[in-house]
């Protein structure tokens, strides 16, 4: 008779032995009543284990858990919405819109870039130019000069670049462009040549 396999039975019972060892154990169990009895007891114990550890939770327990979790999830979701794709998409849209707006403003002429130009040539000034469409805000002064003091400084041409702000659909994302109103040296002659 082959050697007893009692020490291998806890692995054998769930198929954790390799094929060769499984065959050896099976062969021994055919010959040895003691080991076979131990193997049957272990198998019965595993069945009892699975039967005893069936989940005690019912549908009402699961619904209660779901309610409790969702209360917190909704509170956290409202405070800090889960975002992964949205910011990327919003940023992409904002960049595309900015690019289109820049092209549009450049086509309108240098004065359209800055309704109250700061460093553009005097001959190109158009003070009555309407602001661009969409949710664009043009501010000739940097943000730190806005407020009550801004109207007082309106008469003086500011030295800094024009400020263009976009408010995206997401209230936490705002795109700010600082646009230089002075036309590029190589574009102005080409426009003049066409006219």
């Amino acid at each position: 008779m082959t050697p007893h396999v009692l020490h291998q039975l806890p692995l054998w019972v769930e198929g954790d032995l390799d094929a060769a060892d499984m065959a050896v154990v099976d062969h021994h169990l055919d010959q040895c009543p003691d080991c076979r009895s131990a193997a049957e007891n272990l198998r019965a114990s595993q069945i009892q284990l699975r039967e005893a550890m069936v989940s005690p939770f019912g549908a009402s327990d699961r619904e209660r858990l779901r309610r409790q979790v969702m209360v917190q999830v909704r509170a956290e979701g409202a405070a800090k919405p889960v975002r992964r794709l949205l910011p990327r998409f919003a940023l992409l849209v904002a960049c595309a819109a900015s690019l289109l707006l820049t092209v549009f403003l450049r086509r309108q002429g240098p004065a359209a870039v800055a309704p109250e130009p700061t460093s553009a040539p005097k001959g190109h000034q158009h003070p009555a130019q309407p602001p661009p469409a969409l949710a664009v805000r043009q501010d000739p002064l940097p943000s730190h000069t806005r407020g009550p003091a801004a109207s007082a400084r309106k008469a003086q041409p500011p030295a800094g670049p024009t400020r263009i702000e976009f408010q995206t659909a997401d209230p936490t994302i705002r795109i700010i462009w600082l646009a230089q109103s002075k036309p590029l040296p190589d574009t102005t002659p080409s426009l003049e040549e066409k006219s």
Partner: protein
Amino acid sequence: MFPGSEAALMDEGFASLPEAPAEDPVAPLIERILGGEVNAFEDLMARTEARVLALAWRMLGDRHLAEDAAQETYLRVFRSLHTFRQGERFEAWLVRIAVNVCRDLARKRGPLPLPLDSMEMLPRDPAPTEAEEVTLLGQRRALVQQALASLPQGERAALVLRDLEGLTTEEAARLLGVRPVTVRSQAASARAKVQAFCTRLLHPHGGHP
């Protein structure tokens, strides 16, 4: 012996966790949640909560603690869903979080109360009535649960993941952060101890079951 037990385990999601299935059925739900549709999380829970509750209860052996663990698991899932990698199986990710939560809670709780010295009140009637059968079943369950409670945490986790949750040895090893051979050895040790525990308490004088 217990014909309904396998079916019940299947209902709880007694299935292995393949690494990269063709398409995860909860992927659209995850996209909706990440897109800001928080209520879709409820659907995600409805699909997976039975398994999480069962796993937590098996790991911790306490109903209330298991409910706390399941709640904490889902909150962690919600808070870190943006870190979930596309293409990974969600249920494997969820089970990993649940196992970590259970291990944290088990560490905080400390060792379980000592098991009973004997269960001699179990009836030995060879032909029990239906009512006696129900009582006997309840006592057997209590006995097995005591046996699990007597195991070291590592052995219990290996046994639960390998034999009750249906994971392969390699999957359980990945979840527990140990080598497969460790899981194999811990699960085997746990099986032997559970059997010895039940035999000792059912037959304290050395009789056969």
